[in-house]
């Protein structure tokens, strides 16, 4: 006898995801037969608001596109503006930007450690990783003046130079984290519960992934090597030696393994940055922001965030304010197209784990 379908509402309070979003699932027994993503809880008209601000002012909005990892959005906007204007960025600033981006990547993955494991009932890891993330936030606080919203990368370079002795502090933190990652392996990747709950769950079909435009760790978890840092290098990524990890399988496990290796690569990048960072200017001063008009035209930039590729498109009509700014984040595909398809046939208890493995950010959908 066929069981009667029931509709469940998962969310909107952070349903295994950072940010408010809801998934309406139709279940038969505990198997999902249909999933629909419902967004709209975070709509703040970011893109429209950017049009109402001058070229500089909007950088306080940009970091709010994705709270756990605000810097790639700042960077992609700054670079788009620089591209439009033809503004040079000092080499030192480029290195500092990469340092910030990679620190943000690590901080964001540490948060993911907590979310991914907690979605399976493993709470200790989250306690640890959020504590370890705090060390990176301390670094951000010292460098940028803010812990979560840095508002640090802006057109022309970065706002402030590295404080005295900052490099050593970063290196110390990296040494500590590298050792610490082994502890996470013990609790997470070597843990039977984690393996059994993630292997073979939430499998993304390789061909569908390409068709739908899946990016970032979910795509690399399908065995496709794709990373903007390599494919279309920006800042100084082409001068740095690192590997883009790829895993086969397309399940939560594969995506987790990709992230596990990426943290180690980020640490490697940070060490190279600190070894090679040149002296000199960190900022090519922009003109008075009130009267700073950009030439007519448009520019598109893409950046590799933890969620995958993010893109910023800005249009100037020659004025002091952007005519249009459009942001394309990975979350749109991951949390709507991908998630709705991926959940079908899965178990209710795996919803949070699957959502978390896609690493999405609802404010990015509702920009």
């Amino acid at each position, binding site marked *: 006898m066929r069981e009667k379908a029931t509709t469940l509402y998962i969310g909107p309070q952070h349903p295994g995801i950072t940010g408010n979003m809801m998934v309406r699932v139709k279940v038969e027994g505990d198997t999902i037969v249909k999933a629909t993503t419902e967004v709209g809880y975070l709509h703040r008209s970011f893109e429209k608001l950017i049009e109402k601000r001058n070229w500089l002012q909007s950088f306080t909005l940009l970091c709010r596109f994705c709270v756990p990892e605000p810097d790639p959005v700042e960077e992609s906007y700054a670079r788009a503006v620089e591209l439009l204007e033809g503004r040079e960025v000092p080499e030192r600033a480029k290195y500092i930007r990469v340092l910030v981006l990679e620190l943000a990547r690590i901080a964001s993955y540490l948060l993911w450690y907590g979310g991914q494991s907690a979605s399976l009932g493993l709470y200790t890891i989250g306690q640890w990783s959020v504590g370890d993330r705090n060390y990176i936030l301390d670094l951000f606080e010292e460098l940028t003046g803010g812990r979560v919203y840095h508002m640090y990368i802006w057109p022309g370079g970065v706002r402030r130079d590295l404080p005295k002795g900052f490099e050593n502090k970063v290196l110390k933190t990296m040494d500590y984290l590298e050792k610490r990652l082994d502890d996470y392996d013990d609790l997470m990747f070597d843990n039977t519960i984690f*393996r059994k709950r993630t292997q073979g769950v939430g499998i993304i079909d390789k061909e569908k992934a390409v068709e739908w435009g899946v990016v970032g760790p979910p795509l690399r978890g399908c065995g496709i090597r794709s990373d903007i840092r390599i494919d279309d290098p920006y800042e100084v990524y082409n001068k740095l030696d690192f590997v883009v990890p790829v895993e086969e399988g397309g399940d939560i496990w594969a995506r987790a393994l990709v992230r596990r290796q990426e943290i180690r690569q980020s640490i490697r990048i940070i060490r190279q940055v600190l070894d090679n960072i040149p002296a000199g200017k960190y900022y090519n001063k922009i003109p008075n*922001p009130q009267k700073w008009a950009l030439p007519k035209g448009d520019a598109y930039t893409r950046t590799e965030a933890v969620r995958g590729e993010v893109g910023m498109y800005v249009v100037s009509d020659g004025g002091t304010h952007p005519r249009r700014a459009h942001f394309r984040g990975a979350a749109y595909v991951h949390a709507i197209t991908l998630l709705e398809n991926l959940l079908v046939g899965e178990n209710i208890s795996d919803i949070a784990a699957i959502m978390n493995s896609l690493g999405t950010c609802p404010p990015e959908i509702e920009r």
Partner: protein
Amino acid sequence: MSFDLKGTLKPLTALKQFGKKPHTLVDVPSIPLEASDHYRGFHYNDLDECIGCGNCSTICQNQAIDMVPVDGIEGKKGDSGLRPRVDHGRCCWCGLCVEVCPTGSLSLTKDYLYVSDDPDTFLWTPGVDNPEGKERISFFSTEETSLNDFGRIPMPELEGMDRVKSFAEVVLGYNEVQARAEASRCISCGLCTEACPEHMHIPEYINAIARGNDADAVRIIYDNNPLPEMCGKVCTRRCEDVCAIAHRGDPIAIRWLKRYTTETVKNADMIKEVVNPDIQEPNGYKVGIIGAGPSGLTVAYYLALKGFDCTIYEAHAKAGGMTMYGIPKYRFPEESLDKQIEYIQKIGVKIHFNTKVGKDISFKEIYSKYDAVFIGVGFPKPWTLGIEGEDLKGSIQAVNFLYEINNGKTVDIGDKVIVIGGGNVAIDAARVSARLGADVTILYRRRVQDMPADWEEIEGAEDEGIHIIPQAIPVKFYPDKKGHVKAVEYLKADMVADEKGGRPKPVPVEGSNTIIEATAVLGAIGQQGDYSFLEEEFSEKVKIERGRFVVNEKQQSTLDKLFAGGDAANRSADVISAIADGYMAVKGIEDLLVKGN
């Protein structure tokens, strides 16, 4: 299903962390964590440094900052008297306000905890409500990090020694690119508007220039200044003295920007086309104006626009007053003046040249013929030093000397000229003498920094090889056998502090007498008015104090239908104050005749 022993035991290794110190060592919020050295916390404002320009409020995209009056802080020139108040419930701690603060008074502190159930208490006036913040400053802007453009676009000029070869204009003017770049430095705070005697709409026209709309800029300028090219070249620019950017950098070149934009309209017809004035139908009132200087021309222009029939009586052959006959042509070329006068005539102002009131026409006649009369005759009569030998041949008054030269005449000054004085007239006379090939020395009784002349003029004079001897008080002119001046004797002076708190006074040093040779001496210690044209029946009734007409705020004298302005009524002795007087007199005359009060 096989049992995974390793995978079951491994997580238990977490127990090795047991007993380790936790990450958060302090109890937040009862013992707050100390923030880092660059933390962006609550605001602090140095109230003495702050000038209330409001740039912080303008840049804040959260509308978290408004400008409010603060007890004990009065508005003055260059200070609005307002201070920023921050709504810490709206602030997002981006620190943009700090980055754009031109004085650097605004900063952020390490403080970040505030708890209250009253939302109103989140509105703070930094510096007033948290004076202790001064010790906790962590995020501030330096000249390097500030988003203000502190460096002025240099003005192209003739080289010092090339200048003295001719009367060619020294300042070459900005080109379009330079003007746009300079205009883009402006933060539109409007402190300049307050300081300008004429309250010109400076931020507005600078904005138009920055946007690339010069015609708009010209229209905005003509709103309340009919002689903008004159001001663009010779204004004393009190606006620049109070420019917010000047606190840590060079003030915006407001005068040069006005010059640039007015020079884009090449002739009187073009001015008329661009300004496209709205000239009202004649209202039947007739106004007589004595003197075609800046104040008289202003009165005539704006009254003519309002439909008044305006007639100017000018003693000389050309209009402009001191700007025509006093200011040398390398500063203010004649064609530049002519074009502005021609435009004023084009809108219907009549000028009777070579008509000296009191000689060619009596004041009484003018007074009876017109519904209102405006006197803008300036200060044509020079002060004399009152020392021995001042009446010798070769001892010339600088204003007379400049008049002759500007009139195309020649004056024999020889090759060694002494100029006495420290104002703009003294510098003008010195620089003109240098152009006539003389070796020039200026004697001034105070220090160079006390000279009332424009600092750019002083620098220009020095570049042209003019010597300045400060703290020198002339005591005697010596004649040669023919009764021509041969030498000047002066005493060195010590600067003695004024007990009443005024500026230091020069006191001659006994026995410091020095004699220098001279082929001519040009006296430039000031001028005074000459109101001999007023018949007794008027001079008795009209109140004149210390050589100036006593007027109310609408420039109305003690005689109802008589108005006065310019040097004859104000102490500023500059073009823009004269224009401001004229503009106020327009209101006064209109009120008197049309509105009847």
